């Protein structure tokens, strides 16, 4: 009697599992069906992209609703090549190692193309030409980069601004903050006398935060690129193709003007073509 009961319970249990499996299969069939019907085909798989957020106006916003110049540009490129970017917030010092290790497929993070970085990753054609800015408190006596020598200077850790400060300001105490806004806040709080940081970030701080001004812009021949792991030639070519289309059809100009309130420099159009 007892055995029969046990067998019966077991049978019911099996039946329940079986029905679950069937239902599961049914619903997954449905999803495949609808994706296929959408017509975007096999290339619609998402593109995982790493970025150090926040770094306004290049990347900003909360998780899931990231925005900024880099983000919108990457989305525009993604549209051209049929892959929707999915962004992951990560820290800049490890970003190239992570893309090289395959943690994500691409990096767009206001990253300057440098020889040293090219040893670890491959870069796309440049998508942005940059300058460094010397940011000081409003009404400060500091008018140029040289004036900062011997003063306390804030930079963002691992950035070109930090390199510039190390090269040009031998007599200064250079403080590397984890994020750009921290460096700007240190300036406003008066614990440092200047910040060396990417010009658009400085411009954004002047507009949004106030109380600070740009003393000097230092051209650095910096070009920003999208990084992929070495050997990912196919993906790199697709990104370059997407970037070219975005530049040619005016999308780039629209995004640029939206975020920088300026016309894009003419050189970017030739810069992104000449590498071919």
């Amino acid at each position, binding site marked *: 009697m007892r055995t029969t009961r046990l067998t019966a319970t077991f049978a019911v249990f099996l039946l329940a599992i079986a029905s679950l499996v069937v239902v599961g299969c049914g619903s997954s069939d449905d999803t495949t069906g609808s994706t296929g019907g959408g017509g975007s085909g096999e290339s619609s798989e998402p593109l995982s992209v790493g970025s150090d957020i926040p770094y306004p106006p290049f990347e900003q916003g909360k998780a899931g609703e990231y925005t900024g110049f880099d983000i919108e540009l990457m989305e525009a490129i993604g549209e051209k090549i049929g892959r929707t970017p999915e962004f992951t917030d990560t820290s800049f010092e490890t970003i190239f190692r992570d893309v090289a290790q395959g943690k994500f497929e691409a990096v767009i993070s206001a990253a300057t193309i440098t020889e040293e970085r090219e040893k670890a990753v491959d870069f796309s054609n440049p998508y942005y030409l940059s300058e460094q800015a010397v940011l000081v408190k409003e009404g400060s006596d500091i008018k140029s980069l040289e004036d900062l020598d011997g003063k306390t200077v804030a930079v963002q850790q691992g950035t070109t601004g930090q390199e510039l400060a190390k090269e040009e300001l031998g007599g200064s105490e250079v403080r590397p903050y*984890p994020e750009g806004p*921290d460096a700007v806040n240190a300036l406003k709080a008066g614990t440092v006398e200047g910040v060396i940081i990417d010009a658009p970030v400085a411009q954004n701080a002047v507009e949004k935060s106030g109380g600070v001004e740009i003393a000097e812009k230092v051209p650095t021949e910096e070009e920003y690129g999208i990084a992929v792991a070495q050997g990912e030639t196919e993906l790199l070519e697709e990104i370059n193709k997407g970037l070219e289309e975005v530049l040619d059809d005016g999308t780039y100009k629209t995004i640029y003007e939206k975020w920088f309130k300026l016309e894009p420099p003419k050189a970017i159009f030739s810069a992104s073509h000449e590498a071919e």
Partner: protein
Amino acid sequence: MSEFFNQYFDFNFMGEHFGEVFDAFLKNLLIFVVAGALALTLGLFLALLRQLPGKKFMPLRAVTIAYIDVFRSIPILIVILLISGGLPYLEFIPKDIRIPHWFGQPDPYWYGVLGLTLVYSAYMAEVYRAGIEAVPGGQVEAARSLGMSHGQAMRHVVVPQAVTKIPAPMLNELISLLKDTTLVSVVAFGEAALIAREIQAETFNASAYVLAGIMFLVITLPMARLVDKLIKRNQGKITRGSHIEVA
């Protein structure tokens, strides 16, 4: 796999960067020593305030308890960020205190010391309190019946006994404090974690992290062993009875 070892266990690389990381680690120790001494002192002070008897001291006790509860409950990282970001703006405070450069150390050092002291003094107060409450109530009663004031009883009878009961938990807190000194990197103070990050950003080699970790181990491991020894000794005292005195 070999890439992993190249990235994290490149001993030649560690040798090349030893000086840099070691200098930075000394800064961790400097934060640790100053913040540790301040927290031990302030913590005892707080614990004693908390033990003040009678209705008269109720407000003081309440403020002390509030301090301890608040600082035990806020992440140290946030405390340090709030101090370094907020304190300099308080213009009614003299500039030398808002943006301190005492003893040749830059302001991020002092913001870190202040943040860690605020939080760890609250932790330490709880450790002292455990020690004080472990002294049997009869001791205080006896001291008071001899005509000692509350303060005298604390000073001559309770606290000397209390501190013999707590070296182990105290050392545990100190180990945590030493490790937490790396949090001061968020305000751009060039201690070991920040320098290791910087070395990695420049060279794409993470071995400096491991090197910094080893330096911490060299200090904290003996401390942990010592904690074990102290606990064992204390248990011996309890289980075998008080007639066995260990000097």
